């Protein structure tokens, strides 16, 4: 404890005032950005939240949520949404892990070059890429032509305007979101560890599964989570490549607005989507303790 000397609290008030003035002036630098977020995100989303609880006569009502439980089409939409999200995430892990591993093993200079193959799609409009897949996968498209030519199948297969096309397109668009954090995590793995393991007599595959793989998990979890959450709310690719056969939540929200102009129903659906997204994030970050992995993503 400090001995209470005379005048020990000298300047205390002035210092406190100065401290809070400085902190407020610093925080005020974040104010413009905050205002934009409040105006564009918080108010509109809050408004939707409010609308979702309004009945036909403007009274409080749970009818939109009750409808969701009543009609099977809603359940189907949510099942489809989770199906597509889980499958896409799975495909991304299967494809993305070897790729990230390959890139992480390369010397930095060469890796930078090959990394462009991941970054380029990342920077390219997803509309353009969706369009490209539409063209590649169509009945008379390159893929069908090629497969028939080498004898994989005899007559053109329907690859697009269905689940297959949607998954192919989604996986392509989501892959960079998995590979980039995974690559960063792999780069941070201490190379001496692997060397030590092999010096101690571990076979390469044993060293990989017992040391490298567990250490790369944080990156993989973060990447998978980003992919999964983005998939949940995805609109463009399923709408174009699904051809009306893959109805995800976002697609249905748009359909409700376009056909019935029912803001309450659309909002309720949106609110459930948001809650599902936040739940996934919260549960995952609790389970995997990955605040840092998520927020330290970088470009």
């Amino acid at each position, binding site marked *: 404890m*400090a*001995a209470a*000397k005379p*005048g*020990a*609290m*000298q*300047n*205390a008030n*002035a*210092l*406190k005032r*100065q*401290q809070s003035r400085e902190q407020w002036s610093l925080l005020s630098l974040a104010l413009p950005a905050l205002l934009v977020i409040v105006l564009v995100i918080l108010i509109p989303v809050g408004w939707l939240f409010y609308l979702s609880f309004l009945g036909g006569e403007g009274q409080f009502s749970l009818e939109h949520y009750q409808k969701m439980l009543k009609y099977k089409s809603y359940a189907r939409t949510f099942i489809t949404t989770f199906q597509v999200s889980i499958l896409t995430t799975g495909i991304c892990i299967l494809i993305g892990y070897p790729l990230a591993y390959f890139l992480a093993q390369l010397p930095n200079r060469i890796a930078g070059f090959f990394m462009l193959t991941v970054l380029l799609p990342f920077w390219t409009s997803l509309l353009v890429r969706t369009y490209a897949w539409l063209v590649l996968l169509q009945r008379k498209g390159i893929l069908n032509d090629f497969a028939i030519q080498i004898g994989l199948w005899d007559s053109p297969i329907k690859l697009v305007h269905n689940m297959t096309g949607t998954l192919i397109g989604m996986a392509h668009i989501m892959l960079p979101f998995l590979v980039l954090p995974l690559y960063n995590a792999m780069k941070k793995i201490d190379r001496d560890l692997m060397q030590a393991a092999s010096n101690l007599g571990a076979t390469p595959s044993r060293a990989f599964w017992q040391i490298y793989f567990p250490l790369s998990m944080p990156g993989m979890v973060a990447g998978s989570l980003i992919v999964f959450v983005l998939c949940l709310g995805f609109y463009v690719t399923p709408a174009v490549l699904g051809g009306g056969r893959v109805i995800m939540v976002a697609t249905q929200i748009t359909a409700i607005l376009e056909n019935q102009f029912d803001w309450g129903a659309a909002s309720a659906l949106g609110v459930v989507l948001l809650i599902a997204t936040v739940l996934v994030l919260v549960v995952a970050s609790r389970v995997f303790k990955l605040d840092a992995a998520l927020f330290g993503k970088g470009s």
Partner: protein
Amino acid sequence: MSSDNALPIHIGGLTKKYGDLYALDSVDLDIKSGEFLTLLGPSGSGKTTLLMAIAGFNRPDSGSIRFDNQEMILTPPHRREVGMVFQSYALFPHMSVAENIAFPLKLRKVSAAETNQRVEEALHTVQLDGLGSRNIDQLSGGQRQRVALARAFVFRPRILLMDEPLSALDKKLRERMQIELKQLHRQLGVTTVYVTHDQREALTMSDRIAVINHGRLAQVDTPTSIYNRPANAFVADFIGESTMLPLEHRPDHQLTFGDQFVATVPDDNPDSQWLLVIRPERLLVADDSQGNTAAAITFGGIVKEAVFQGDSAFVLIAIDNADDIAVRFSTGSASAMANLQAGDAIAVGLLKDDIIIIPREAG
């Protein structure tokens, strides 16, 4: 008090709390004009917090910091006119050496001609003539250190603050820079506050040392006094090597070790407890061939361990009813201690002037 080159600093009641922890606990310290004062303490002792408070980067909760009687505690760093050298040097990598040094002059709108001249002078002072156009990444660690220094004094501040500026250098270079910094201080005459955790560095460089522990000043004094007359166990232990033995406080105000008289203490508190501080190199062999009998106190014991360390030999002596005593003998060819071995019987003693007693703190 103030001169053209230097300002005195008065620190009063300076307090800074982090949560329940006092980083600075009502610190009072007067730094004289032109003095080289070192803040010495273990990490987390509050020495850097104090330095940053003087510089204006750490805002204390209360207290006063005056430069030559002018209250500065609310003044922002850029108006304190204090030169500062950071541990990491914090040179600006996007500027050349000369641009780094010219930075404070540019801010003060010094003319181009004078800026050039003063940058050249500063480069000369830190022995970096002709390196002004170099990039920072072309410099060695020692050169970077000098640039940081030149940048800190080129605008002629009357106070210079340094936060462990030599800790990133290797031992040899560090020792050379200690001497150079000392010379530079003499040349500039500026009041200098220097932070280090290295007691040797503090003893080498300082006019005075302020030893800090747990946010409080443990002792402020000259290097010799700090070493020869530590005020408490923390200082005795932190600076130099020492063995501390508890003493008996007799009703007649005499302190004794066994039967031997050590010192007399004032009689204000008969229950106070005292320690004898023994510096290893101050111990003499009590009964060698020269018949050295001047020792005021002697300790007889058995050599527990004897280690040859080049310039000296380190010997641990086990004595009855107390901790082992550490002794350091010089290893000249004439030394009688050259062939000591574990198990040998030995007696060592302290001259009267080398007796140090300190109060034993509670706990």
